[in-house]
């Protein structure tokens, strides 16, 4: 019995949280980013210890290269380390749902999708590494709009089988 509860309780909590988040997301700021909106990212933060990434240039043009400075201060348990560029597209859509009384209601929601990503493996040894990453000329540029946005990040991650990846990021502004 206790074994069943061990699995059932987390599932019920996750489904309950997802339902509450869906209902309240448009109304309360706490659901628009941060702990309640991206709980996995929040949990991942303490795991970034020992892994850092930065770049000298905060702005870079499409078609140019970014020089990433990867610092590994603790290599134990890192797994395979990769450094990469990710562009996330945020887009608004109209979500419709059926209410308990059978009527339909709609609300404006924001979804996200990966518009671009490219990863390069690096040696997972303690030290500082310089890695050059190219931004394709046809990739999106950084843009913050009303219903459509593109956000770039320079990311280093340590992939660990069966466990949450270690990950550290640095926002980048990509000019057209």
């Amino acid at each position: 019995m206790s074994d069943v509860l061990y699995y059932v309780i987390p599932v019920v909590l996750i489904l309950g949280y997802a339902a509450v988040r869906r209902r309240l997301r448009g109304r309360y700021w706490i659901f628009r980013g941060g702990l309640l909106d991206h709980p996995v990212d929040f949990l991942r933060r303490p795991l970034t210890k020992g892994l850092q990434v930065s770049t000298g240039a905060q702005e870079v043009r499409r078609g140019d290269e970014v020089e990433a400075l990867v610092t590994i201060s603790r290599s134990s348990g890192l797994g395979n380390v990769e450094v990469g560029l990710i562009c996330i597209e945020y887009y608004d859509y109209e979500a419709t749902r059926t209410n308990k009384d059978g009527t339909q209601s709609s609300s404006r929601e924001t979804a996200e999708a990966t518009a671009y990503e490219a990863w390069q493996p690096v040696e997972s040894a303690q030290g500082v590494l310089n890695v050059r990453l190219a931004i394709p000329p046809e990739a999106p540029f950084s843009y913050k709009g009303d219903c459509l946005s593109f956000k770039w990040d320079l990311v280093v991650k340590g992939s660990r089988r069966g466990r949450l990846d270690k990950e550290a990021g640095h926002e980048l502004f990509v000019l057209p």
Partner: protein
Amino acid sequence: MSPRLQLQLEQERYRPGDTSKGTILVLEGGHSRSLEVHLEYREETADYHDVPVSIAVGSLHEGDLTTGTSFEFEVTLPPDALPNYQSEHGELYWEVDAKSNEIGRDTHERSRIEVESDPARVTRS
């Protein structure tokens, strides 16, 4: 009756700071309060859209429009104009919008233009 318009542009591809020249032809005359042209940068998803940049050319004509008349205009893109971009879930693009301001629903004739990035001029906005 609403007028029927046709929008003709001298070219379709531009760079930031370029001037777009065009003509509005009145194919069928009709009631109008004024004829205006806007150059707009639009963002669009499947369900929503917004116009973060709108540059007004001004009124080209006041009053009803007569069949066969034409109106020339020109409008300059900002030097820091962002380029067009199409993604999987949305699009950013420039468009010339000729509008006949009418009582009730306005008549629009729109034409997209392609704006490419100009690395020499672009700065962070």
